């Protein structure tokens, strides 16, 4: 930090009133809200039509969003920031909040991703949730989520963003616990809620600090003024770190990532939409949105990138030893979100958002593939009890192949470009350590995704194998009764575990979204074939920029590209050797690495650590407070009453009821007064 760094100061945000299609951009969040209201009150009787209604509203939003973005595309670069009509929501003293929606290149990207991927997953859900008793409620929640997420990305001030932020958290809670009849599902929902509260508290304090410094919470007033108001002092660092606290909660980064793997308790399309494609990327979006503040604090950026890379590595290590096909994807999501944090942490906000977009495609796709598999396998999730599915469900398999190759960074699929941009940005910014760890993580990504693909779809059929761990009887399974570990097979209460398995390809309503997302994941790279690609150029006016700094230059860009390609291929190759040739019935890693593999399998016991340190300490503190309340606070109040009673019962002895004793008192008192008078007179 010592040397003087000239940080970017030029950031402008001139919003103009929206015209044309953008003038009806408020329809984008409104349609899903209407869907939510209708489905809440009338969803019960609609049955399967509820899904079609929800899909219609989200598709409608998508159509409007496409129109808005097309109009933005045709507009001059300098005039792409628009405000829709709105009204004053809150006006108290200096605080004035409006409900205007901000449409700029950044929010345009987000609304396209949210409504586009969201609509596909709505469509898929129609097939996945078929026959569920509470379909109406499910689609109502899904529409509510879409509304909340759109509010989050379209809000023109921090408070509307925060409202959306909290609402998506609520939807996440409702949908994780959708099958609340199963205790682990309800526990997982509660855990997600509680862990997110920690981050949200930090976020809220950050908002207060912004208001204290700027006297406003409007993006248009805060962001352009950031460098003038905050300078390079501690205030920028404080605000940036407090906002980061919210982001690590919502985007599942160290130390608050623990809720996301358990969030797989929800229906799989929910995992795809909320816990992979959209909601968990809100933290990345928020940092990109607040980038003019972040670029003022080098410390905050270093913290963001460090948390990101540490999370990416840790989650990738854990993912290698998960057997639940959804858990692998969950830790993979945590890991990929770590990449996005690295991107925004090294000042490559465009690259971070690019990875957000491609991740929405390929991770959404991966979860839908997993859901399709579970649909075929009677909601079974242990990959060691699958195998040989590729002939039975070819569409699911081949779209899964596309997704796995994409996430592993194989060109020309989109994940290759977005991941490479982040790693190259980290390297060129001078963070060689972060780049190196990121590269290792890229290899690990290939390994765990290869394992996921090979064990689930290829090799021999293991459907009827006993439900043992891959290393034979796992002696730790019985002992490990932590709710967190036991949580979340994402099972429906109606599942009949002993039903005869008849794997089959999913219906078209599910495979169409698979194919659509596979195409997007494959060709998404056209958004940013180079670092000055269309997407990053498009975002330039929305995010702040760090001035180019003399970072490491030992390796030229082609070398970096080849290195990250080698990393991805090495990971996939290792997975091939370990899991496909020869085909395995058990995990050779678990068998040979012993305790290291066990540590990965148990997530390095982080859940148990948190349980010991925070949950129990919190419980002890609460019990102390209860004691304090009962003994000291209540004691003081009760003590007052008891004092009055005791005093009164002592004094009432005087009141004998005997007339003569009162008279005696009268006489004696008079005599005493006379005595005093006489003594005084002497």
């Amino acid at each position: 930090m010592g040397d003087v760094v000239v940080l970017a100061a030029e950031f402008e945000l001139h919003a103009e009133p929206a015209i044309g299609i953008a003038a009806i951009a408020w329809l984008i969040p409104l349609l899903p809200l209407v869907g939510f209201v209708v489905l809440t009150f009338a969803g019960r009787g609609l049955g399967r039509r509820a899904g079609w209604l929800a899909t219609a509203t989200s598709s409608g939003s998508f159509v409007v969003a496409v129109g808005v973005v097309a109009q933005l595309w045709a507009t001059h670069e300098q005039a792409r920031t628009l405000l829709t009509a709105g009204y004053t929501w809150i006006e108290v003293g200096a605080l004035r909040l409006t409900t205007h929606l901000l449409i700029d290149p950044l929010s345009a990207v987000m609304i396209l991703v949210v409504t586009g991927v969201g609509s596909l997953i709505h469509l898929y859900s129609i097939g996945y949730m078929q026959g569920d008793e509470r379909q109406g409620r499910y689609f109502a929640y899904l529409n509510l989520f879409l509304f909340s997420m759109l509010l989050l990305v379209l809000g023109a001030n921090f408070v509307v963003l925060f409202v959306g932020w909290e609402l998506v958290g609520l939807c996440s809670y409702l949908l994780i616990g959708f099958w609340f009849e199963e205790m682990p599902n309800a526990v997982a929902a509660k855990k997600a809620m509680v862990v997110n509260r920690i981050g949200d508290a930090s976020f809220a304090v950050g908002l207060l600090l912004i208001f204290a410094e700027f006297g406003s919470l409007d993006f248009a007033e805060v962001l352009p003024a950031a460098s003038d108001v905050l300078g390079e002092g501690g205030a920028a660092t404080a605000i940036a770190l407090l906002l980061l606290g919210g982001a690590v909660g919502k985007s599942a980064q160290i130390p608050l990532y623990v809720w996301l793997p358990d969030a797989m308790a929800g229906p799989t399309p929910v995992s795809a939409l909320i816990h992979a494609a959209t909601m968990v990327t809100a933290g990345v979006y928020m940092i990109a949105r607040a980038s003019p503040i972040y670029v003022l604090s080098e410390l905050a950026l270093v913290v963001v990138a460090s948390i990101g890379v540490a999370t990416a590595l840790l989650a990738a290590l854990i993912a290698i030893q998960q057997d639940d096909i959804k858990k692998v994807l969950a830790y993979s999501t945590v890991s990929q979100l770590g990449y996005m944090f690295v991107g925004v942490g090294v000042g490559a906000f465009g690259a971070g958002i690019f990875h957000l977009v491609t991740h929405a495609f390929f991770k959404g796709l991966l979860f839908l593939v997993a859901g399709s598999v579970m649909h075929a396998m009677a909601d079974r999730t242990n990959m060691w009890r699958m195998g040989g599915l590729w002939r039975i469900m070819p569409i699911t398999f081949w779209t899964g192949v596309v997704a796995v190759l994409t996430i592993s960074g194989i060109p020309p699929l989109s994940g290759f470009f977005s991941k490479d941009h982040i790693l190259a940005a980290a390297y060129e910014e001078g963070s060689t350590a972060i780049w190196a760890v990121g590269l290792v993580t890229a290899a690990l990504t290939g390994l765990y995704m290869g394992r996921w693909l090979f064990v689930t779809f290829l090799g021999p059929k293991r459907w009827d194998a006993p439900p043992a761990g891959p290393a034979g009887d796992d002696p730790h399974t019985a002992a490990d009764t932590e709710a967190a570990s036991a949580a979340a097979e994402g099972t429906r209460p109606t599942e009949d575990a002993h039903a005869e398995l008849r794997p089959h390809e999913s219906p078209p309503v599910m495979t169409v979204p698979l194919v659509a997302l596979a195409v997007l994941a494959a060709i998404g790279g056209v958004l940013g074939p180079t670092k000055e690609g269309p997407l990053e150029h498009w975002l330039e006016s929305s995010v702040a920029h760090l001035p180019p700094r003399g970072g490491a230059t030992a390796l030229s860009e082609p070398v970096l590209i080849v290195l990250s390609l080698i990393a991805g291929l090495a990971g996939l190759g290792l997975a091939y050797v370990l899991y496909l040739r020869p085909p395995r019935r058990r995990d050779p890693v678990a068998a040979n690495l012993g305790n290291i593999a066990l540590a990965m399998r148990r997530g390095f016991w982080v859940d148990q650590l948190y349980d010991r340190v925070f949950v129990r300490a919190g419980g002890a503190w609460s019990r102390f407070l209860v004691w304090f309340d009962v003994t000291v606070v209540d004691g003081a109040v009760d003590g007052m009453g008891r004092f009055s009673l005791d005093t009164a019962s002592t004094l009432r002895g005087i009141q004998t009821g005997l007339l003569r004793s009162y008279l005696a008192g009268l006489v004696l008192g008079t005599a005493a007064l006379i005595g005093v008078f006489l003594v005084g007179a002497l």
Partner: protein
Amino acid sequence: MPIGYYLVVAGLLFSIGSVGVLTRRNAIVLLMCVELMLNAVNLTLVAASRLWGAADGQVVAFFVIVVAAAEVVIGLALVVNLFWRRGTLDIDVASLLKG
């Protein structure tokens, strides 16, 4: 006759009255003792009036007599009520308001 004699007699009357009030339980005796005390005071007032040659003390004495008459009326009414309700004149029986 010097004023001292009157005062001594008045003091004796007052003491007899107050001791009677404190020691006796019969309500009527109690009223009579109160009368004794009042008359002791009256005696003092009249004696003092005579000593100073002013009528004030005698006027006050008349007031006391009138008030005492009214007091006896109320007192006897209470005594009659006490007797009807409790069948006794013992004032210690009327102790419902004890703490």
